[in-house]
């Protein structure tokens, strides 16, 4: 028996519709990717994925994504904390604005950040004299990826900070802990699972990101060419085999991160359930 019997109707219908969509839109395309990958000769595959240009692209993609995720780890925590704990006028508006990177098409984010951080841009023109070049450098890529990833960290942390309440902090204070000790020993450990989940989600999104990065990146092979762009370039040259090879490497990384996110979320849920019970 495929299912536990239920009095509610619609099992066959919903199973049929769901399987049809998943089959045609997810499994079939992935099968095409697998078929293409299987047709590659191992030597050629290896040559493609370990080509210096590809290696430079991975290094850039992973490096910039990690840097952006780390920045989001710091600022996302700050923003989430302030949004939950500090009253200030216009808070609802600011709270809604946090989702802007989810809602704003990536191409729009891309050209806007490029213009803002360009040598003549509102922000770039003040950074130039300090010797900071943002647009068309790794720094620009990191800025775009930070923009894209911010809501993931904030929105993962916010409910946990809310749920945490102030009880534990008060208890710590009543036991003689100073404010810094309380934060370090009570607050941060409580937030750790959710924080790691948010940072990993941001990292996962950054690794695959294309639209917001291509404008600000400069796209110089070996220097400012991210891995998704390399896939795109190979596709434009009708090098399907090469594109597939690079895509497999990136997909593998994404799946590892997905697995990590699943584990972290399970940890996070266990943690909050355990607290609710105690």
């Amino acid at each position, binding site marked *: 028996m495929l299912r536990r019997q239920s009095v509610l109707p619609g099992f066959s219908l919903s199973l049929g519709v769901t399987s049809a969509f*998943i089959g045609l839109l997810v499994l079939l395309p992935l099968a095409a990717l697998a078929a293409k990958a299987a047709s590659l000769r191992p030597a050629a595959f290896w040559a493609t994925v370990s080509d210096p240009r590809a290696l430079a692209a991975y290094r850039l993609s992973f490096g910039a994504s990690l840097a952006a995720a780390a920045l989001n780890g710091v600022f996302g925590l700050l923003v989430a904390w302030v949004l939950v704990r500090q009253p200030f006028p216009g808070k609802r508006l600011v709270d809604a604005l946090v989702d802007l990177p989810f809602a704003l098409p990536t191409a729009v984010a891309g050209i806007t950040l490029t213009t803002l951080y360009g040598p003549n841009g509102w922000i770039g023109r003040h950074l130039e004299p300090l010797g900071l070049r943002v647009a068309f450098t790794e720094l620009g890529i990191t800025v775009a990826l930070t923009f894209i990833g911010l809501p993931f960290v904030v929105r993962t942390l916010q409910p946990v900070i809310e749920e945490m309440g102030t009880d534990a902090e008060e208890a710590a204070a009543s036991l003689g802990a100073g404010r810094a000790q309380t934060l370090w020993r009570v607050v941060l450990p409580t937030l750790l699972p959710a924080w790691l989940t948010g940072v990993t989600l941001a990292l996962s999104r950054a690794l695959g990101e*294309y639209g917001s990065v291509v404008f600000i990146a400069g796209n110089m092979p070996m220097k400012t060419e991210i891995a998704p762009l390399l896939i795109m370039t190979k596709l434009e040259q009708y090098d399907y085999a090469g594109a597939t090879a690079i895509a497999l490497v990136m997909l593998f990384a994404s799946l590892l991160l997905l697995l990590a996110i699943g584990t972290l979320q399970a940890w996070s849920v266990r943690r909050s359930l355990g607290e609710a019970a105690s």
Partner: protein
Amino acid sequence: MSAIVAARRAQPLTPPAPSASEDSRPVRLALTGAALVFLGLFLFVPLLAVFAEALSKGGEAWVAAVSEPEARAALWLTLKVAALSVPLVTVFGVAAAWLIARFDFRGRRLLLALIDLPFAVSPVIAGLVFVLLFGRQGLFGPALAEHGVKVIFAVPGIVLATLFVTLPFVARELIPLLESEGRDEEEAARTLGASGLQMFWRVTLPNIRFGLLYGVILANARAMGEFGAVSVVSGHIRGLTNTLPLHVEILYNEYRFQAAFAVASLLAFLAIGTLVAKALLERRIGGSR
């Protein structure tokens, strides 16, 4: 991803903080200030910049840029793609959520992971897989070419890529909602003699309507704004396979910055509308609990 879904509904709530868990006033001001400066520089200034650049040559230039034939064709295509793909992912989302939240069956967890998968895949790879399927050298490419059907570098390919990237939105919104509402009301409807369809229309749908709308709005924003996946399969044929985001790219790469931002401002309106609708719906969803 479910953490995000749940989190987006979080109601900002500030109980008067008791002194033991309260930072000193200068610290609080510094924290709030730092967060606001960061958000201002990172989110508000870019949003403002879109409109400033779009209007940098005056209103007439803005009107000219958004009403030139290629821009109108791009807008039309974007609306068409959304109109085709959003209803489909809505049907999928409702079916998948009903299946996952109401039945226990073998392979349920695997199915859940597959529903989430498009969130984890790079948009470029999302486009690539459809090129591998339907492109000229793709699995079905030769067969399709024989019958004169064009998928890649044509509208069907754009719709397929859009479907792929928007697939999880509605389902992901509805699954936790259906799970938290339980099945009592639906069972009550059954014992009172309602047919499956009557139960769905009169009991299930009214209970999930705000969550459904929320998912649809998010899916729509992504469908209209998708760039990477669509970029791979569209072929950038002006007036034919250019959506608004792709049109923005073309204008920008031609150094027609003001025109690019004018078209981008249409998409920024979409984003603002989405954020407003989201905030309003979050209040409704939060209130019904």
